[in-house]
């Protein structure tokens, strides 16, 4: 909080205007009364955090001429990749390396686990080089240094082996096992196995033709052996009189319940006194923090834990999540707006239409006027950049709009006179309408013939009082309707704010986080003329042949965070 404040600007993607909740009429009594068009966007509303994006996050569809935010693009996966083919430490999320349990004083071990495996035989463990957690702490060791994932799936914490679902299935088929009916210890039934058993059981129940009504059983010969089509047909013909259930499988009527662990029924054991005494003796240090538990994948290899997952020795190495590279399409016209190289190693993009190269960027600086030292337009006045704003004292901010496209744009700004929220600061945009010149090549500008350049310069001077872009003369007073300063493809204008006082009436709730930041909602409308074909990528000169050109406009809300208001 004490750190200096950096002004920022956020843009609201227009896609969030079409919120479906506005449509609902009778569904919710709590939706506010219908909002009129000139309702100002409230950056303080909790919902706004979901629709505001920094300019860098936004894309732009060239064909629809519309901003596209991460919420309104269609994504496709270009490639999957593994950021690190190993595991994460469950304690500190550092990467785990395979090391031999017999620690030999070999420094290469930690660095290159896979190569160092060759000289060393014997059991291996996963070790975190950061917090020194090893999987031996939870009793997990591996026979081989590779294929850790498969090995881990067969191991419980503590080192006991378990059968994977596949092995269970094979075992069930194996007649030698079937001959001797082993009453499976119900405690042995872990999540994955219970799920598999249940699945097998249900499938058996559903596929069993005898469980169906005898009268309909013959339909199975006609290709209706699928339980759902069977039930569907039954429901058509019987009119539902016999079948009172809402689940299709119960409509078969004869599916029984699972009766033993082999079918997925697991009777709970409720005696947790051992766990309690363990908790008693180990205290807080023996338990995993919430963050660590959240990082754990669902434990598939243990019987239901019911609270035992809190102990450190039930933590499991966390497999790294795969990542993806994604290409993005415009959801409306299906054009690709971003496409990365499919090779994992490269960070380049084949197509990337970022909004920053289509819509003007806004940068904010505080303007020091009062001193009159003439030190320049930079904010290096007496007001230290980032210093808190004095309440109830007018402050001035310089908004610089930089035009990235090769056409001259006309910008119209709209801002509510007072900021929404509990603390209403007054905002005045001194010059709400202006033009920003095209983003011509720097060399074009330099190589233009003199007459044109003179004309250009004159035009600029005509609008701004002093086109002497270097300094600020005493004549450079704040004037309503005048541009402060103008450059090749940028224009600066002044916004005057009178920050509200943050004094709270007694009994009001205290300031929320960031409520002292003065945020200005501003509606930006950008108009420009572009060539019809839509390939305005070429550096077209500003000279217009208006027949082949069409008018375009883009309008959106943005939020300017200009500074913190000093609290008393």
């Amino acid at each position, binding site marked *: 909080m004490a750190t200096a404040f950096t002004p920022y600007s*956020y843009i609201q993607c227009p896609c969030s205007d079409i919120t*479906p*909740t506005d*449509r*609902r009429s*009778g*569904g*919710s009594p*709590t*939706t506010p009364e219908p909002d009129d068009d000139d309702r100002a966007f409230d950056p303080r509303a909790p919902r*706004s*955090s*979901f*629709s505001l*994006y920094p300019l860098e996050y936004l894309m732009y569809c060239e064909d629809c001429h519309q901003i596209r935010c991460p*919420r309104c693009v269609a*994504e496709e996966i270009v490639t999957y990749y593994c950021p690190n083919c190993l595991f994460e430490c469950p304690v500190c999320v550092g990467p785990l390396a395979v090391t031999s349990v017999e620690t030999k004083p070999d420094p290469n071990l930690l660095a290159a686990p896979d190569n160092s495996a060759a000289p060393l035989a014997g059991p291996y463990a996963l070790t975190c080089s950061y917090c020194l957690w090893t999987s031996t702490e939870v009793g997990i060791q591996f026979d081989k240094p590779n294929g850790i994932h498969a090995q881990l799936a067969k191991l419980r914490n503590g080192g006991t082996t378990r059968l994977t679902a596949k092995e269970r299935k094979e075992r069930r088929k194996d007649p030698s096992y079937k001959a001797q009916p082993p009453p499976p210890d119900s405690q042995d039934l872990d999540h994955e196995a219970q*799920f598999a058993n*249940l699945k097998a059981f249900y499938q058996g129940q*559903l596929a069993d033709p*005898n469980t169906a009504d005898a009268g309909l059983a013959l339909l199975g010969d006609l*290709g209706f052996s699928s*339980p*759902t*089509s069977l039930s569907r047909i039954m*429901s058509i013909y019987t*009119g*539902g009189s016999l*079948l*009172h*259930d*809402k*689940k299709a*499988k119960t409509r078969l*009527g*004869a599916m*029984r*319940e*699972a*009766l033993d662990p082999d079918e997925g029924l697991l009777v709970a054991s*409720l005696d947790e*006194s051992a766990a*309690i005494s363990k*908790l008693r*003796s180990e*205290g*807080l240090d023996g*338990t995993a923090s919430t963050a660590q*538990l959240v990082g754990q994948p*669902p434990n*598939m290899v243990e*019987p239901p834990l019911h*609270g*035992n997952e*809190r102990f450190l020795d039930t933590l499991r190495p966390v497999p790294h999540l795969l*990542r993806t590279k*994604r290409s993005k399409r415009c959801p409306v016209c299906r054009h690709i707006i971003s496409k990365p190289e499919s090779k994992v190693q490269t960070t380049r993009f084949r197509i990337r239409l970022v909004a920053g190269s289509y819509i003007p960027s806004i940068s904010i600086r505080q303007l020091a006027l009062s001193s009159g030292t003439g030190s320049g337009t930079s904010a290096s006045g007496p007001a230290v950049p980032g210093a808190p704003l004095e309440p109830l004292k007018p402050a001035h901010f310089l908004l610089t709009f930089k035009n990235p496209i090769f056409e001259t744009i006309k910008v119209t700004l709209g801002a509510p006179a007072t900021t929404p929220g509990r603390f209403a600061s007054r905002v005045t945009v001194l010059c709400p309408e202006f033009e920003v010149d095209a983003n011509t090549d720097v060399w074009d500008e330099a190589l233009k013939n003199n007459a044109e350049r003179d004309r250009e310069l004159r035009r600029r001077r005509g609008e701004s009082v002093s086109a002497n872009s270097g300094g600020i003369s005493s004549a450079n007073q704040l004037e309503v309707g005048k541009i402060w300063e103008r450059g090749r493809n940028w224009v600066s204008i002044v916004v005057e704010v009178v920050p509200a006082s943050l004094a709270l009436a007694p009994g009001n*709730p*205290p300031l929320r*986080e960031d409520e002292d930041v003065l945020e200005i909602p501003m509606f930006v409308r950008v108009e420009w003329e572009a060539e019809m074909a839509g390939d305005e990528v070429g550096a077209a000169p500003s000279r217009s042949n208006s027949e082949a050109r069409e008018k375009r406009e883009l309008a959106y809300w943005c939020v300017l965070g200009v500074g913190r208001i000093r609290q008393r």
Partner: protein
Amino acid sequence: MSTSSTSSAPLPHRSVANIRTPSGAGQSGPSTPLRNISSSFSSPSSLRADDEIIIIEFGTRKLQVGFSGDAAPRGTIWFGPDQLRRAGDFRDWQLGYRYDWRSAAAGGSWARDYELWRYDVRSVDLGLVGDKVERALRDAFTKYMLIDSRPRRMVWVLPSSLPIPLLSAALDSVFTRFQPPTVSLLSSPLALAVGAGVRSALVVDLGWSETVVTSIYEYREVAAKRSIRGGRMLVEQTHNLLAKHLPQSAEGDADSQEHVLSFEECSDITSRLVWCKPHPTTGQEEEDAATRSATVRIPLTSWLSPTTLELPFDDLSEPCETAFFDTQYTLTSFDDDELPLHLLVYRSLLQLPLDVRATCMSRIIFTGGCSAVLGLRKRILDELSHLIQQRGWDPVRGKAVEKLLTNPKLQRPPAAARRSHNNPETAPPAQENVGEERDGVWHDHDHSAAPAASYMEPEPDPIEEQLKRGSGSGSGSGSDQRTSVRGELRVIESVGAWSGASLATHLKTMAVATIDREVWLQHGATGASKPSEVDHKVQRQSLGPGGLMRGSAAGGAWTLGVWGSV
């Protein structure tokens, strides 16, 4: 509400489109429907590898997401204040940044930022709920599921008491942002029952905002009882316990509503340390006498200044005691919405018909976040069996009843014998199908009418018969001869609501309520018909193919199932 809407429903909560067949299919023999199946649910041959169904389980504090057929969800998204930040706001990573929970908790929203919704929709910003759901899902899809944004069918697992506005907000958001062709709704108690392999169950959901006891009978929710004693209360109690042990701070008064510790910290300590004392009669105190003096050191960082508390370990069972049992009060002193858990379970069982009760009581499933409190499940069960022993299954209590029982002029068997007789643990419940409220008037079981009824033939159970027939014809292994357990208290494990739904979807069962995207976007929740209305329509339509077609041409009626209608 859920009881009435589902119990009488014959068939078709689902849309007519699912059973739609082209005209003429009806008469032309049973071979045509196979060719003309229009529903994607229908035949096993339509199993497409790329057609993966996404299953989402909504909880108050977390969201679990995965593919159908998987044993466990791919990822879990917890709701928290950092989820409410703007994109590109990386202050969490800034050095020295600390979440200012005090100002965020002002105005009684101590825990609110950690929740997706509250059932009291008067104070809920529905648009925000939609936004939260969307962001959480987007995170999950990108981080855990690694899927692109092609439309996929979804199955939602929801608590059956979810208010329609919340459901509607979530549906709105998902239908517009993710374009799933259909969203099917499954109630989580049902999914839990499926995940436990039983058809009937008593699901005790020790959830975050409340504890719900749902009775499921033959895959139908027949009753639900709720109590506000849930995880939120437990964390509050933990906070109070910790605050009590803090050195007296400047603000002093411990009774004030202000929170002195952050929610995050209290929640963390709750999930790590809070445990539940065993039922006093089980008598484990003696052996623990040596360790009685054990203490726990708890470092606290969110207080005014970081400090370390040293608490007796036994004190850490207090929050659980107060939040769930409140044993210092008599059982009659509670409101209906704040019943202690054992009483809640007892009453839920008590209100069930005898037959249903016998089945349900041996299929108790504990679920929800608070079932992870060590010892809580056993405690509830012990208290429950204690209650049953004490009271039997007699809902009438009070002085008058005692007088009646002790009145020597009325010749009655001793009370103990009577209880044991009524107790389904000892008596076969099917024989006792007396129907306690046969004609709206209460009848004691040993009233003069009872013997007559007990001599009556039990109602034939078509399902049991079918099962018997199936096993008799040698359908499977001999395992079918085993009878299912009834009438004794038994707790079983479920693979969880998410996994249960995954199982059900994988087996291509049809969901109660399936909502079509187009229809929803047109009508919203107001388009949902009452379940009863749809039933009649479909019944009528199913009589002839013409009616069937008319129904589907009109878009098909659909319902929100147990979630009711507007």
